[in-house]
Structures are given as structure tokens and as C-alpha cells.
């Protein structure tokens, strides 16, 4: 047995190797490693880790079963609280959630809760353990808009309660950001996402792709003409922001969403798929979140030299620590305290470079973070041929603008009750990024769960 203060190391593809392929970076624990890591957990009575998990998974409970080798029981315990463990185990920002609260973390390293959760979920999948559809249906129809984590969770929970649930998805593939945003090398599409979607279908949920609510059909029509008694909106926050600097419509400037969608959803990185992608030689990714890291590491794998351009310092990078670490290992260059001013274009309107300015951190702003301010006269030109804007996203107004009586706030987010997901429109519930603005998978799941409960209460009392 190794040092109990340290995590059992997880096997990963070597940085040099993985920088040239799209296979999953992290290989996960095997049985022995998982049991050894589980043995480090001291099974706290008043387990703080649980309070750090937005869906309150019984962490000591499932880890205890892993330690004993009862993986099926561990899976059952996780399933009580989470519908997508193979995904959360991979993409949750554990360091600021469950693992951030772990007692072990005070003196040494926290328990690898995420990696253990992933192990259990992968084990269950490999051993063919699936949720089963409830025997009795209650005959009530509920529509779910969007097949991201919030929609899948809400649909799954309602199906378990006996509802007849249909998910409507605008794209041709279900999964939301899990399929179009987060890359293959972090979250395998066929082996993980598609399987979790299958599990939701196994509960009896129908998924209708290629239906864009607000255009193909409206919420009112779903309720008045197609007999849906309640609707959950989990349409995400897909609308990309741009900086508004000169040169932004030039050829070679992409939103991270476009770049990632071409590569992930449309599989542009594979020879056998038709969708093209610009393989830049020198790429600047503007921003410092998970999305920026994903775009940067994708561009790197497509063969480019990649710079992350971020206006604050390393400490403020909003991305998961693990992603920043992986990006650095793979060779992404970090230009911190740097802000773009203008994208330079050539005679064909293609990117010919980017003028940037150096920044320093000034006084803290309203959010408590130190505000970056420009250093006068420090402009310089970054030699790049491709720029990927990763500045955040906001909810798409298509649904709110086509649904009478659905209130939104100033940021175009749908207003919904946190406990129940209830919106200003009767029978209509909402959750996930559509309500909060861009957040995390697990928060979206939590909101989907809460709304399923809210919808169940509403329809039971009707």
C-alpha cells in the first residue's frame, strides 16, 4: 500500500502521445486501484464531502462498498442520487465540490471521489447493469426540451415515476453540450455519453431529434394540441458571445462552439466524416474556462501551436485545475494577463495576426476578483492565423421569444424557482444553463431533478 496521504495515481496516456490523438486522456482506475483508493476514505460520520456535491451523493456509502469490492451495490447507491455518474465522475470540478470538502484533503490529498465514481459507473456499464422501466405507467405526458444533462435527468426521473416522457432535441444527436461541446478525449461519445442516453431510453423515455421548439412547434402547441400536461425547458445556454473588436468576422475567427461542434458533433477530426474544419498552424484561444481549454486542446490535436490568451492571472483561470494541468503538459502556451485589442486581416479577409495588450491586476471588483487593467503602451502582435473566441455563452432567446407568459431576466435567462423549477407559465418548468447561464453538468442535473419533483407534485395535485 502506498502513502495514505496521497491519491492512488490514475493511469493516463502520456502527454506526447495523447497530444496527437483524440482518445481519452485519463484511463481510470482498475479494480485493485479503486479498492486501494477507497480504503483511504475514513468513512466520516458527518461526511463533509456530501455537502460539497450538488446532488448529495452518499459518498462514504458508495466508497465503502467499493472498498469491499461490492461494485454493484456501490452503483445502486450512486444511482439513488445521480443519473449520469460516468459523466460527472469525468467532468465535475471535484476540487471545488466534493473533493474540496474532503477531510483527507486537510493534511494530504482528498479522496479521488470523481475517479471512484467513474470507476463504479464504468464497471456497471461493462457488466451490463441497466436501470429498468417502471412496471406501471400513469398515462400522463410530459415534454422535455433539450437533451443535455438537465433534460436527460428530468426525463429519467419522471419516467421512473411512471410518466410518458418525450424529449425534443434541436440537433441530430442527443446529449447537449456533452456531445457537441466537451471533446472525445475528455468524454468518449460512443462508450460513455451514448450509453448514458441509452439508459435514459431504457426507462421508457422517447427522444425525438431534429425538432426545434419555437420553430418546428411551440410550447403552447405541445400543451394544447399534443396533450403534454407539463413541459420542462432544459435548452441550455448556447448563444456564443464575441468581443466586438475589429476583425472579428474575418475568416479564421470562430466561436469555441463552432470549432468544438465541427470537431465533436460533426467529427471533423475523422477522415471518414464530411464536415471540414480549419486546421490552423498558430491558434489563439481567447478565454480561460473549461470551454477555452477544450478548444485549445482540440486545436493542438489537429496539429496547431496553441496559445491561451487570458486577461487575468493563472489563479483566476475558471477552468478545472485538471484541465489546465493537462493542457500545459500537452504543450498549450499560456499568455496570461493579456487581452486582445484587434484581429488583423489580410487582403482576403483572413486572420493575419492579433494585436494584444498586457494587463495587470488592480483593485478587486464586485465579484471579489482583482480587476485586470491595461498597461499603457504594452501592445504587441501575436502571430496567429486562427482565433477561437471562448468568452462565454448566454441562453438562446428562441424559446422565450416564442412562448407567451414565460418571464426572463435581464440576462435572457428563464426565471424559475430553485426548489421546483416552476416558471411564470403554468405547467412549464425550467432548469440548467437556460436558467442559470453557463454553469456545470452536475448543477444542470440537480436542476433537472428538482424540476422532476416539482412537475410530479404539480401533476399529482391536478
Amino acid at each position, binding site marked *: 500500500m502506498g502513502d495514505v496521504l496521497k491519491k492512488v495515481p490514475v493511469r493516463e496516456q502520456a502527454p506526447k502521445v495523447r497530444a496527437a490523438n483524440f482518445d481519452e486522456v485519463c484511463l481510470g482506475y482498475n479494480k485493485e486501484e479503486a479498492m486501494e483508493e477507497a480504503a483511504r476514505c475514513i468513512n466520516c460520520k458527518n461526511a463533509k464531502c456530501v455537502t460539497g456535491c450538488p446532488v448529495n451523493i452518499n459518498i462514504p456509502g458508495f466508497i465503502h462498498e467499493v472498498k469491499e469490492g461490492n461494485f454493484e451495490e456501490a452503483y445502486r447507491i450512486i444511482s439513488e442520487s445521480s443519473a449520469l455518474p460516468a459523466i460527472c465522475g469525468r467532468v465535475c470540478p471535484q476540487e471545488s465540490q466534493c473533493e474540496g470538502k474532503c477531510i483527507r484533503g486537510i493534511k494530504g490529498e482528498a479522496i479521488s471521489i470523481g475517479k471512484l465514481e467513474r470507476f463504479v459507473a464504468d464497471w456497471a456499464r461493462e457488466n451490463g447493469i441497466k436501470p429498468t422501466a417502471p412496471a406501471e405507467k400513469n398515462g400522463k405526458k410530459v415534454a422535455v426540451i433539450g437533451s443535455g444533462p438537465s433534460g436527460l435527468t428530468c426525463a429519467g426521473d419522471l419516467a421512473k415515476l411512471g410518466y410518458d416522457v418525450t424529449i425534443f432535441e434541436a440537433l441530430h444527436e442527443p446529449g447537449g453540450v456533452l456531445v457537441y461541446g466537451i471533446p472525445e478525449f475528455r468524454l468518449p461519445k460512443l462508450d460513455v455519453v451514448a450509453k448514458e442516453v441509452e439508459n435514459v431510453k431504457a426507462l421508457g423515455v422517447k427522444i425525438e431529434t431534429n425538432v426545434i421548439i419555437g420553430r*418546428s*412547434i411551440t410550447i403552447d402547441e405541445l400543451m394544447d394540441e399534443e396533450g403534454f400536461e407539463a413541459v420542462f425547458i432544459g435548452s441550455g445556454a448556447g448563444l456564443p458571445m464575441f468581443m466586438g473588436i475589429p476583425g472579428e*468576422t474575418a475568416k479564421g475567427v470562430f466561436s469555441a462552439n463552432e470549432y468544438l461542434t465541427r470537431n465533436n458533433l460533426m467529427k471533423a477530426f475523422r477522415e471518414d466524416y*464530411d464536415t471540414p474544419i480549419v486546421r490552423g498552424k498558430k491558434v489563439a484561444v481567447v478565454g480561460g474556462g473549461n470551454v477555452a481549454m477544450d478548444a485549445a486542446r482540440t486545436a493542438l490535436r489537429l496539429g496547431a501551436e496553441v496559445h491561451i490568451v487570458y486577461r487575468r492571472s493563472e489563479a483566476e483561470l475558471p477552468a478545472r485545475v485538471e484541465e489546465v494541468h493537462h493542457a500545459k503538459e500537452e504543450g498549450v502556451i499560456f499568455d496570461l494577463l493579456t487581452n486582445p485589442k484587434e484581429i488583423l486581416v489580410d487582403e482576403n*479577409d483572413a486572420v493575419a495576426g492579433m494585436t494584444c495588450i498586457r494587463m495587470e491586476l488592480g483593485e478587486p471588483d464586485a465579484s471579489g476578483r482583482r480587476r485586470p487593467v491595461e498597461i499603457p503602451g504594452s501592445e504587441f502582435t501575436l502571430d496567429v492565423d486562427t482565433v477561437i473566441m471562448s468568452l462565454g455563452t448566454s441562453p438562446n432567446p428562441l424559446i422565450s421569444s416564442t412562448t407567451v407568459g414565460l418571464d426572463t431576466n435581464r440576462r435572457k435567462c428563464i426565471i424559475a424557482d430553485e426548489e421546483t423549477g416552476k416558471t411564470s407559465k403554468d405547467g412549464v418548468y425550467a432548469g440548467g444553463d437556460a436558467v442559470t447561464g453557463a454553469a456545470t453538468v452536475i448543477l444542470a442535473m440537480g436542476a433537472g431533478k428538482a424540476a422532476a419533483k416539482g412537475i410530479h407534485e404539480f401533476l399529482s395535485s391536478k
Partner: protein
Amino acid sequence: MYKILKAGKLAGNIYEMVVEAPRVAKHCLPGQFVIVKMDEVGERIPLTICDYDREAGTITIVFQPIGASTEKFTYLKTGDSFRDFVGPLGRPSELCEEENLEETRKKKILFVAGGVGTAPVYPQVKWLHEHGIDADVIIGAKTKELVILEDKFQAVCGNLYITTDDGSYGRSGMVTKVIEDLVTTEGKTYDHCVAIGPMIMMKFCCLTTKKYNIPTIVSMNPIMVDGTGMCGACRVMVGDEVKFACVDGPEFDGHAIDFDAAMKRQAMYKTEEGRALLKLREGDTHHGGCGNCGGDK
């Protein structure tokens, strides 16, 4: 899967298909478009809705193979299916919205259609005809064989002017010449123009109508991916504002569009696509020319 109930050629290399898509057919209006994905590995290709039948639940699309993806569409026959067919996307044409009807009735309207752009003009003219408005239409084509839908237009429009670049049918010369002739020597006046066709045609139409102060709407066809407002690939400059053509358009005020920038942007993937086309046509026998495989060295 979305079944192709009819597939055939309209003329030359212009293809027409009638596709079963009840949800789209129930809600679409002229001016809107669909995104079609042929199979698992296919691209998402935007195509304008050229006709629809609400009862039968069908949509008609018309296209001209110009690259690898549209070329692949031509392999499909009656009875085959598209894997994906989503819509209606974009905003309907302002002319074809019930609430604008009263305003529209007061206008003298001219449609200018170029090449394969003739097909998307048809549902607009037809809709107006069904609402008691007969608009004049100019159809421009390279040569006689490429004039499409003449009879169908004849049945629903006011005056129909056909012109061919080579003078083999109808008038002779570009559509812009017809606009000029109508307005300057044939005593016509128009308060509203809609121009749909190749980007270069729309550009010159707008320069012409600007001279005569005729407000002009064009239908932009930038590169698109999702068509739902999620990727920003379709952004066009309208005046000094950035618009997403898939949700804010595709129809915009043509006098405010920067066509030169739009045309440069549209050429973005030409080289990559050129390679895909080579691969498709030559298959395993392909050896060089694509700049990619090194076989020509």
C-alpha cells in the same frame, strides 16, 4: 429518417426533391429553410424551403451540386431517405406574414430570381398570390436549358420577365439590365424588391435598386453549422451590426449588407471541400492533386 417521395432533375444540373417531414410542413412559411444531413458522416447542409404541402406533410427542396456534399445528394433516388431534416429554421419572409398583409397590399413588388435561387422565390410569390397580391418576377438564367419553374410562376405572378445571359431565351443579358429597362424605359415603378440568387447577383441587384431607391431584401446563404444560433458561423455584417443569419435572417436589408466580406467568408472551406470532392469522385484510384496525400510529388 425522412423519406424522399420524389427525386428528379428540374433542368440541367438542378435537382428537386419532395421530402416527407410533417413537423416542418405544418409550420413553415416562405423564406425559411431546413438543414439536411444525408447520412451518419454527412455535413449539415442548409437548403431553402421551395414549396410545402401541409396536408401531405411534405417539403420541396431544390439544389445544385456545387461541392462534395450536394454532389452526394444527387445519388439519392425516390424511396431513399435523409438521416436528418430539421426545420423550419430562420425567420419567414416579412412579406409573407399575415400581420403585415395590409401594408404589403399597398406595395408594388418585384422579385428578382437568379439561377437556382429561382426555386426559393416561388413559395413567396405563390403565398402572395393566394393572398390576392400579384408580384412581378424577373428570372435570370445562364441559358435556355437552365430556366426553371416557368409554368409554375406563370400561374401565380403578375408580369414574368425571363432573361438569359446568352440571349437564347427571353430577354438577353443580366437581371440588373432588366431592372434598369423596366424602371427607366418601360415605365414601371416598384416600392419593394426581393432578390434571391448567387451572392454576386444579389450584390449587383442591390447596387441597381439603390440607384432607384427601391428597398431591397436579399436572402443570405453564409456557411452554417447548427442553424439554431449556437455556433456563430453564419454571422454577417448588416450595417455595423453583426447578425446571425440562421436566427436573425436569412433575409436582410440588401442595401445594408457588406457583400464583398460575405463572399470572402463563404469561400472559407473551398480548399478543404475541394479535397473531399476529389476523394469522392476518384475514390481509391485517387493519386494526387488534392494537395494532401502527396501522391502528385
